[in-house]
């Protein structure tokens, strides 16, 4: 299965989903006006991956901003991975947030509260150079 690689833009995240290693990355910003269209190929990819997953999958989320229309789509990604986990595979979400960005930490905890996948909260230094 081919990796899904999408370059990041000012409104959409950098995506690197690698079926060979089970490492899935979503980085940057997710603030498109039409999130459902944007996420369609990502969800399709994870759906296919879920049929033949690696024994261990790690989803790295490192978002600076995401809008509420992306949040439902991100939840859909988690739900696909929840199925992978229920099937007996290891799945972990590494949720990165910038130091002092309590809102992003809370956003991760909000997902944690409704999704049955272990989350690891990882604090990182501010990336935008202010």
């Amino acid at each position: 299965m081919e990796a899904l690689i999408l370059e990041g833009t000012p409104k959409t995240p950098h995506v690197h989903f690698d079926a060979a290693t089970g490492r899935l990355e979503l980085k940057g910003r997710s603030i498109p006006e039409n999130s459902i269209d944007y996420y369609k190929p990502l969800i399709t990819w994870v759906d296919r991956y879920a049929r033949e997953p690696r024994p261990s999958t790690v989803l790295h989320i490192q978002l600076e901003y995401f809008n509420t229309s992306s949040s439902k789509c991100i939840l859909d990604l988690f739900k696909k991975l929840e199925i992978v986990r229920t099937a007996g595979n290891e799945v972990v979400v590494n949720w990165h947030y910038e130091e002092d960005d309590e809102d992003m930490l809370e956003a991760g905890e909000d997902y944690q509260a409704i999704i049955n996948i272990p989350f690891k909260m990882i604090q990182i230094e501010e990336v935008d150079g202010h």
Partner: protein
Amino acid sequence: MLDRIYDLYDELEQRRVMLSFKGDLSEELVSALLGLVERKMSILEPDARMRKRVFNVAMECLQNLYHHNTRLELADAEGSATNIPHGVVMIMHHDKGYSVLTGNFVADKDVHLLKDHLDRINAMAPEELRGFYQQTLANGRYTNSGGGGLGIIDIARKSGQKLEYGFVPFDTENAFFSLNVNVTN
């Protein structure tokens, strides 16, 4: 009108308006406005958390303007909605923080639902609001704009204050909806 230009400029200056726009919105314009918000905030605001909150609120408010443009055209016999997003947005800087103000048309028939949603959110304490967000996120439903009704809840969480809003009758089918979101420390 010519003599009003300076007055307009002066008022914007006095009220410390850092951004103001009125008109039709496109995806490109929303991007440009957000770029402007981000640049201005990086100059004005030393606190990273405040910068992000203002950007977040502006982003959701613009998203709302972009998606909720249900003004019914009276010229159209069937009363169909116009499909060009239209509205006004203003961001003001004040001593305690920032205010993001938006205005757009809402069909009269939708006013009741929107008002109930806002009142419900305004009545909630921060932890209740968080629970409501999680519950709305988890219900798995999508709305036309994709957010499934999360937008205003998120705006209220980032603001941390009651949302100020108003409806002004516009014509027989529509009202003008104004929203003021304060973001303070």
